């Protein structure tokens, strides 16, 4: 009976998914009935969360069933151009990410949104669920039209979510920047599809798959895709919108954008380069690898000097996206050198890291949301000591912190481990120079991972540990029940994937089988993963966890048995100087100082140092992105100049405008006839 049900579900997976996407739309619209009522949020968001969960289950079932694909043609769309949908392993994997992380974020949102914070809760619900639905459609689209429609819907709905507190000028500015770069990226993607159709003028993905492109055209398509999807993913140098938009948005929205929306860009990149393009060249791999590693390092270095907790996390997203793209690049590089197994390993690492990043980055953004609600502070310099006031949030944030820092036995370590394993095979690449430079990539990756640990110690230590830096922090309150539920869900995900990486590796292997025709060595047991060969390398998060817990427990018992457990509470040792206060703790600026010192060339720094005789000294430091000044400002100035030149045409008189139209008509008539 159950198996029969399961088999019908499997056969009609795509239909069910479509139904769920429609359900999101319905939930969103339902919120518009009672826009200002908080009840709407408390009821509808859990429903949305349930839908997410069902999406995740359906995607997981599809991946487990090992089907090739399911396609569908909708009776909707332009005349003669119906919308095409397709569910295959790649889209199912990203739907899985969307569902798993989305469920946690939605349930958290149910407890998070309040009346009176910008956009009304009902409207927020509509935008939110539209955002979710459009992301799902992006993943399922099988023709360029539907893809672009969904892509733009996603950009617009997220824009409105970002600017929900639109009365604050900085938020409007951040939203504008986001919209601008999203559109430049969308144009690139559109052009990319234009190149991909290869003269057939059919914009169905199937036509693109069968099109044969010259190497030049294929490379053009790849570069356009890289620009378009890279802009969405936040690859350096298209990253500038990310650290502006993420802090501006409400925390669950930041979590969605960072955890899920960036992954649709990864999906797009994979779809174009591995599925729609029939050839790949090793230079692409090198380019992607270099860009990815640079982004990773850049993101980590900038994250280390931030003083706003959400900006810090935004830069950390750049870092993680960089790692994912480096994995994709390495995979392309291996694949073009006919090292398919290693290509599968690298791609697997990138996919698993996408899932992991969705989990721990959403978790951390949500904890910042709770902190923000409890303290009204985003500035790291005014936080501190929250572990005593908010034990739930602090302990969940600790899980996220350890996971994102890439520490065993949590999930961040698993993907980094896989990627480092695949770097070990780079000397087998048969290109001179490449085989010498690429192993250096492993070093950059290790440096990035270690820097990420630095960043996260700063984040956690300054926000949750130490003493409260402001008196007002004393009445901070812990997260409410629904918020806790969301946090626990995501934290459990981090732990579970860390302890049993097979949960993520199996679905990822299904994807690599589809894209590369090869998957890494599956091991039957739940104890080990050994992607290439057990003798080569093996890892077991479960045994690590059991080992640590076991040794800690035994040590604790032995200490209690053989020694004693007597403890006195005393005042903190003041080193003989009794006038210490909470403001004397290391600040966020102080914690970033070694990084500023070592990587000074990356930053554009403005510093105001107090003079020795000042009675009320002020120390101020401003750190800016060099790329903003080097790339974006010249472009902005050029556009301004161009607009001024064109502006001359604008005389203001109606008859002149009519004259323009008239002249255009004449010119056209002359040329056409």
């Amino acid at each position, binding site marked *: 009976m159950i198996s029969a049900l399961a088999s019908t579900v499997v056969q009609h997976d795509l239909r069910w998914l479509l139904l769920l996407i429609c359900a999101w739309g319905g939930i969103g619209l339902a919120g518009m009935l009672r826009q200002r009522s908080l009840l709407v949020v408390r009821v509808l968001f859990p429903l949305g969360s349930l839908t997410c969960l069902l999406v995740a289950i359906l995607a997981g079932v599809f991946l487990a069933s090992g089907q090739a694909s399911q396609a569908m043609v909708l009776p909707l769309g332009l005349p003669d151009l119906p919308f095409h949908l397709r569910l295959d392993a790649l889209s199912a994997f990203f739907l899985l990410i969307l569902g798993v992380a989305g469920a946690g974020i939605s349930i958290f949102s149910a407890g998070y949104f309040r009346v009176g914070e910008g956009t009304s809760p009902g409207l927020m619900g509509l935008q939110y669920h539209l955002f979710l639905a459009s992301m799902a459609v992006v993943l399922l689209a099988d023709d360029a039209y539907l893809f672009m429609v969904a892509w733009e819907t996603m950009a617009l709905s997220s824009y409105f979510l970002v600017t929900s507190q639109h009365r604050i000028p900085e938020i409007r500015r951040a939203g504008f920047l986001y919209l601008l770069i999203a559109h430049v990226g969308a144009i690139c993607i559109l052009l990319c599809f234009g190149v991909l159709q290869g003269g057939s003028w059919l914009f169905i993905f199937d036509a693109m798959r069968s099109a044969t492109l010259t190497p030049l055209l294929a490379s053009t398509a790849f570069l356009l895709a890289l620009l378009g999807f890279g802009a969405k993913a936040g690859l350096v140098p298209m990253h500038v919108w990310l650290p502006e938009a993420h802090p501006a948005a409400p925390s669950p929205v930041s979590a969605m954008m960072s955890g899920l929306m960036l992954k649709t860009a990864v999906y797009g990149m994979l779809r174009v380069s591995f599925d729609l393009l029939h050839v790949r060249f090793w230079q692409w791999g090198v380019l992607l690898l270099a860009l990815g590693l640079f982004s990773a390092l850049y993101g980590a270095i900038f994250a280390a000097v931030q003083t706003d907790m959400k900006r810090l996390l935004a830069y950390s997203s750049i870092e993680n996206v960089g790692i994912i793209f480096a994995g994709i690049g390495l995979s392309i590089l291996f694949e073009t050198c006919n090292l398919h197994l290693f290509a599968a390993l690298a791609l697997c690492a990138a996919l698993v890291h996408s899932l992991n990043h969705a989990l721990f980055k959403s978790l951390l953004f949500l904890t910042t949301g709770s902190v923000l609600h409890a303290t009204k502070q985003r500035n790291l310099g005014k936080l501190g000591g929250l572990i005593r006031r908010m034990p739930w949030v602090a302990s969940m944030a600790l899980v996220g912190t350890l996971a994102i820092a890439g520490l065993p036995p949590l999930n961040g370590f698993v993907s980094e481990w896989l990627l480092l394993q695949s770097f070990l095979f780079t000397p087998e690449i048969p290109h*001179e*120079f490449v085989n010498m430079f690429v192993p250096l990539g492993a070093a950059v990756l290790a440096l990035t991972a270690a820097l990420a640990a630095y960043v996260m110690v700063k984040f956690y230590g300054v926000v949750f540990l130490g003493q409260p830096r402001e008196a007002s922090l004393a009445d901070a309150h812990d997260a409410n029940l629904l918020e806790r539920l969301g946090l626990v869900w995501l934290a459990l995900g981090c732990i579970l994937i860390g302890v049993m990486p097979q949960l993520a590796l199996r679905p990822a292997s299904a994807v690599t089988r589809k894209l590369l025709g090869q998957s890494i060595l599956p091991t039957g047991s739940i104890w080990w993963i050994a992607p290439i060969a057990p003798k080569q390398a093996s890892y077991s998060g479960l045994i690590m966890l059991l080992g640590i817990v076991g040794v800690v427990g035994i040590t604790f018992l032995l200490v209690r048995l053989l020694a004693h457990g007597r403890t006195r509470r005393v005042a903190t040792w003041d080193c003989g100087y009794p006038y210490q206060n909470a403001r004397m703790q290391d600040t966020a600026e102080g914690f970033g100082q070694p990084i500023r010192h070592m990587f000074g060339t990356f930053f554009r720094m403005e510093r105001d140092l107090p003079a020795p005789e000042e009675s009320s000294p002020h120390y101020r430091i401003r750190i800016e992105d060099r790329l903003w000044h080097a790339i974006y400002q010249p472009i902005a100035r050029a556009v301004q100049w161009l607009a001024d030149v064109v502006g001359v045409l604008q005389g203001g008189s109606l008859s002149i405008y009519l004259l323009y139209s008239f002249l255009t008509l004449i010119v056209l008539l002359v040329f056409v006839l």
Partner: protein
Amino acid sequence: MHLLHPFTVPVINVLNLLAACLLLLSFAMLSRRRTQRLITLFAWQGGILCLSTSLVAYSSGLHELYYSAALTLLLKVITLPLILRRLIYRLGAEWDSETMVNIPVTMLAGLMLVIFAFGLAQPISMMATTITRNMLGIALAVILLSFLMMITRRKAVTQVIGFLAMENGLFFAATSATYGMPMVIELGIALDVLVGVFILGLFFFQIREQFESLDLRNMENLKEE
């Protein structure tokens, strides 16, 4: 032909090891600040050259190479370091301190040079007939690194040491790729180096007399306005 005399496996391994040491010493020179350390490292380099040359001589049966090894020992391990040490003692230049570019950046540049040299040497070494051909990349790297050291230092003495280290690299290239140069040329080069150091030593005194310092930045003032 004795040129194709096969090396036994351990010998080639030891040679590889010595080549790696040579490169390591070059890097160590790049990272040191004190002149005296540089001279010590230079002497070590000479010692390794001497060892590797005699090893090549032993395994290839070319007896001239023993002479060139002895010459290396005499000149580069004993004489030149002695002269240089006396020189810096009398010039009071033991503490050549600051480099133009900071050390990690210099090292990174050095790393890039090594990659460049190795990549360049790969096709060349395919053509070479000797089994020691892989050493060519190392030799090239040593030459480039010494050049880098000369570029990044300010004091005159350090530049001379860089120059001598470069000669070491060339010498190593010669022994590893072609089993050494003819004896006449080698003697000539040795004499050149010795005379060169004497002349440069004289120059140092002149420079110091003129500017009261050995800092080469002072030379920048000599250009025509």
